């Protein structure tokens, strides 16, 4: 690599990690005031806060790697949908509480495994952020596991809703483990490739879904694209809400 050239793969990796936290955090924030019980109001707010905290660390680092003086706020508020690199899973709508919880569990189980692997990254800053985020993600997973089991192995109604949510969201999980050129380049430099996380993730997920009496759908349709900026239609609406204030009064302060 030429001295001074932007480390494209590292930059893309950091956007992917940061955008996952930012977009899922924003999704969860929209539920505040609407949670089914007070404890969940607290849980959702705290999980969203942690994810936004992670996003700030990843996106700040992305801005430094890019070297164009973009801050975490520039990254969050002044990129368009095609420039976001989050997985399709996290931008899916909140739906019912079953959809929200299944999305969260599928993400949390991946997140814990990914952060565990990145904690040993050859890039010290990536390792430090991952080590910082990991215990928080563990706590999130404890909560989402608990809900998946309780609602999956709950009433006929809750079971049916959870099974439908799982059928709807499962296809989006394959993208989490699909490696592209960026991933392969980073793997050659000591950052674990996504496909190497799948076996452990699947093992974790199967154990929880078995306890929840939920059936994992067959692998079929497997949409991808989030990692290169090709998103579902849901992302633009989310961004419009998240970015409109900052874009209508750029540079404004509270």
């Amino acid at each position: 690599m030429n001295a001074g050239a932007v480390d494209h793969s590292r930059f893309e990796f950091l956007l992917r990690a940061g955008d996952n936290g930012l977009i899922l955090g924003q999704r969860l924030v929209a539920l505040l005031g609407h949670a089914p019980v007070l404890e969940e109001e607290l849980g959702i707010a705290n999980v969203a806060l942690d994810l936004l905290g992670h996003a700030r660390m990843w996106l700040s680092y992305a801005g430094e790697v890019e070297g164009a003086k973009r801050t975490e706020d520039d990254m969050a508020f002044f990129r368009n949908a095609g420039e976001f690199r989050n997985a399709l899973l996290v931008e899916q709508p909140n739906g019912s509480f079953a959809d929200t919880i299944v999305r969260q569990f599928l993400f949390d189980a991946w997140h814990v495994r990914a952060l565990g692997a990145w904690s040993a990254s050859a890039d010290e800053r990536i390792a430090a952020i991952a080590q910082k985020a990991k215990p928080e993600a563990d706590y999130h997973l404890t909560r989402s596991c608990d809900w998946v089991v309780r609602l999956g192995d709950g009433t006929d109604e809750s079971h049916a809703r959870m099974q439908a949510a799982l059928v709807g969201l499962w296809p989006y999980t394959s993208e989490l483990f699909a490696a592209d050129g960026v991933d392969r380049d980073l793997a050659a430099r000591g950052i674990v490739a996504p496909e190497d996380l799948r076996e452990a993730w699947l093992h974790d997920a199967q154990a929880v879904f078995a306890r929840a009496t939920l059936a994992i759908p067959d692998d079929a349709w497997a949409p991808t694209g989030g990692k290169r900026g090709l998103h579902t239609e849901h992302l633009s609406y989310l961004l419009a809400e998240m970015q409109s204030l900052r874009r209508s009064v750029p540079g404004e302060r509270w």
Partner: protein
Amino acid sequence: MTPSVAQVWEWLGDVPDPEIPAISVVDLGIVRRVTWTDDAAQPELHVAITPTYSGCPATTMIRRDIVGALHARGLERVRLDVELAPPWSTAAISASGRDKLRAYGIAPPDPDAVVACPRCGSTAVECTSAFGSTPCKALYRCTACREPFDRFKCH
């Protein structure tokens, strides 16, 4: 005159955590190192701190409070370095910090100990919410004295 590092630590010990004012930023283990640069003519104080929870909104205030407290003591050249690694954990909370938390009504985070009610000491407690009013706390209830209380999460 340049105050000693020990003096600076003592001053930092008076800077309260903005969310839990009963405990200082030193008790919490947020302050990692205090050093003076070698430059004899214009020494600069370096304070290394580490954030507690990634998304804790108090982090910004803590940085401001630390710098503000040192400025108020007449130290003008202060640099704050934020370190992530190794990550902060509740093991960094001092023994006196744990006592202060308990006296304030928050069960301290002892990974090996059973959670005890900070008011009556009973261990007959139940968790009512894994998440609480700040990122560091969970909600509990004592089934002996019936009081609800916060527990500092083990982390």
